[in-house]
């Protein structure tokens, strides 16, 4: 990738700050004729952060050779300052650590478009560049994860390492004659003991969280099961290490050391450690229970799924009835759920219907519902024939007895003769006259004077009646 005729001997060192300035001015010029620019980066140049080989300002094609190499922080202060300065970018990178592509351009946006800042971080190996993507360096990622307690890895080797350290320090302690150095080894043992407790507890917490996460979030059943089994193995390892530590500090292995070196501080540390280990043990027992429970649930679930698959297959082949015990099973099953919904057709209490206030509204409601919405079509009658419409007059003369009475009362003739002589407007037979006579007497007897004299006419004997 080096330009033709490149000679490292021609490279000359430029102060970082000066170089920065030079590069800035260069970049602005570079943008003006972008296609003919080649920028070369190469590593392994000791000395300055940036080494420009040669800048051919007068030539149309500029070649810039910038060399980068890995730097280390010289002090904690520098480390913290660097991290603080780019906290925005780092926290964003940490949040998106599981997303595989964190674009360089996006990172540039977070550092206010100052590419130097990103370059500096890359130089210090805080972040790594992979093509156009950026990611946190493993070392820092692990550090952040562990401090923030979000790590998914459970590393049990730490405890083991510390146990080995303790053992070694004990040997050195016993073999050392110089008091001061002896004390130094004792301090190492104490430190390691202190750490073991904390690490064990952390491991247990991590384990618990990971188990929970795996069970709840892992979608693949087989992986979930395997993961849980692996976590169970880790649990076993932690348990064994805890037992090992416990065995060590109870002074059974290194009796001489714990007898000789025992001071108050060591005793206190050991007691605290034992308490911590005990807590871990209890937690581990609970974790074991949980894992068993989770594994059982998975087994149950996958059992159900497997069984369901087989049954569904047989059902689709129409063999379920003949090849399984489903008939017998259901024949024995007396669950109410298989029955149709029961209805209880109870008669209505007549008393309630008559006395209850609500009953009336209910009845009205029902009546309303019963009213059919179907319109009854009235049958049309046939047209009436004209014959029926013709008026046919039939006259009948009715005798107005009242009128007859008034005429009679005005005259002086006796009633029967008066009737026979009265003009009724129609022919009245003798029999009719007799009838009218009788009707008149029965109706108006109070207005007539009925005498005891009887007359005879056409063989009809009648009482002579005069008006009063």
């Amino acid at each position, binding site marked *: 990738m080096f330009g033709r005729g490149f000679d490292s001997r021609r490279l000359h060192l430029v102060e970082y700050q000066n170089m920065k300035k030079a590069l800035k001015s260069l970049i602005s010029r570079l943008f003006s004729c972008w296609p003919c620019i080649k920028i070369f980066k190469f590593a392994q140049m000791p000395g300055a952060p940036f080494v420009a080989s040669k800048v051919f300002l007068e030539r149309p094609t500029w070649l810039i050779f910038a060399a980068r190499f890995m730097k280390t922080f010289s002090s904690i202060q520098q480390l913290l300052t660097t991290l603080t300065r780019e906290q925005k970018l780092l926290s964003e990178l940490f949040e998106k650590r599981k997303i595989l592509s964190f674009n360089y351009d996006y990172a540039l946006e977070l550092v206010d478009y100052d590419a130097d800042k990103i370059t500096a971080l890359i130089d210090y190996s805080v972040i790594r560049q992979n093509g156009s993507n950026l990611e946190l360096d493993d070392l820092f990622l692990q550090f952040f994860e562990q401090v923030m307690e979000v790590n998914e890895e459970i590393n049990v080797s730490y405890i083991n390492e510390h146990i080995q350290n303790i053992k070694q320090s004990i040997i050195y302690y016993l073999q050392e004659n110089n008091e001061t150095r002896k004390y130094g080894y004792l301090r190492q043992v104490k430190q390691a003991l202190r750490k073991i407790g904390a690490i064990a507890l952390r491991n247990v917490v991590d384990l618990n969280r990971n188990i929970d996460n795996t069970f709840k979030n892992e979608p693949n*059943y087989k992986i979930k099961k395997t993961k849980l089994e692996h976590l169970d193995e880790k649990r076993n390892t932690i348990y064994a290490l805890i037992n090992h530590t416990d065995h060590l500090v109870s002074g059974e292995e290194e009796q001489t050391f714990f007898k000789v070196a025992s001071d108050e501080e060591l005793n206190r540390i050991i007691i605290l450690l034992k308490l911590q280990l005990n807590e871990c043990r209890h937690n581990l027992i609970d974790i074991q229970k949980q894992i068993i429970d989770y594994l059982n649930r998975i087994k149950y*679930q*996958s*059992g*159900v*799924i497997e*069984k*369901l*698959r*087989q*049954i*569904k*297959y*047989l*059902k689709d082949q129409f*063999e*379920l*009835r003949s*090849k*399984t*015990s*489903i*008939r017998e*099973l*259901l*024949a024995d*099953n*007396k*669950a*109410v*759920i*298989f*029955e*149709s*919904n*029961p209805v209880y057709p109870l008669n209505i209490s007549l008393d309630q219907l008559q006395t209850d206030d609500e009953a009336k509204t209910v009845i009205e409601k029902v009546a309303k519902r019963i009213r059919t919405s179907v319109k009854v079509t009235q049958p049309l009658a046939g047209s009436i024939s004209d014959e029926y419409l013709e008026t046919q007059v039939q006259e009948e003369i009715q005798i107005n007895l009242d009128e007859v009475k008034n005429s009679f009362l005005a005259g002086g003739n006796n009633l029967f003769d008066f009737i026979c002589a009265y003009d009724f407007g129609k022919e009245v037979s003798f029999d009719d006259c007799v009838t009218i006579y009788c009707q008149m007497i029965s109706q108006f007897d109070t207005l007539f004077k009925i005498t005891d004299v009887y007359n005879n006419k056409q063989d009809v004997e009648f009482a002579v009646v005069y008006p009063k």
Partner: protein
Amino acid sequence: MNVPKHTSDIFELLSKGQFICSNSGKDSVRKLYNIIDENFDDLHDYFSSINFILERGDEYFMFTREENKADLERKLEAAFKWIDILDFFKTVDHSFSAGYRFTPSDILVKLTVDVNMKNKLEGLKKYSGGKEKHAEILDKVLDQLRRDNFIELENEITNSYKTLASFHYLERLILSINIAESVKNEIPE
């Protein structure tokens, strides 16, 4: 006999073939569950005198009878339906079981990318009363599960459902079907 005052409510639900589940979203049902839980023996005796057997399942209660009242064909029909429906939902999510929450729209989205699931849903058409659209078939199936008290509409606004503890009954039913070893070997993996 000393029975709690909610006995009539309990009877009302259970005699219709419903379940009373501990994880129901309805306060009233959860309360009934606790009442049965506390007075199980009394209620069991009480109901047995009217020919209902109160049964305790895994976080649910249900009624069975001493004598068979439903005919075998009807039961087989119901069981077949449940097998199909259960098979579909287990395809949707392997962890579909009591306590699982879902919305029909989630399932419909999955349908678009899973042909197997789509086929299975179309297989459920026969229970949907002639509905053709996927959403309608799913709604019908969910409605049936809801009526049989296996799921519950938890949130009307988001239209999200929750699977009730009674779902264990279906799983238990499936697990209790025996398949002869020789037949098992015939079933392809």
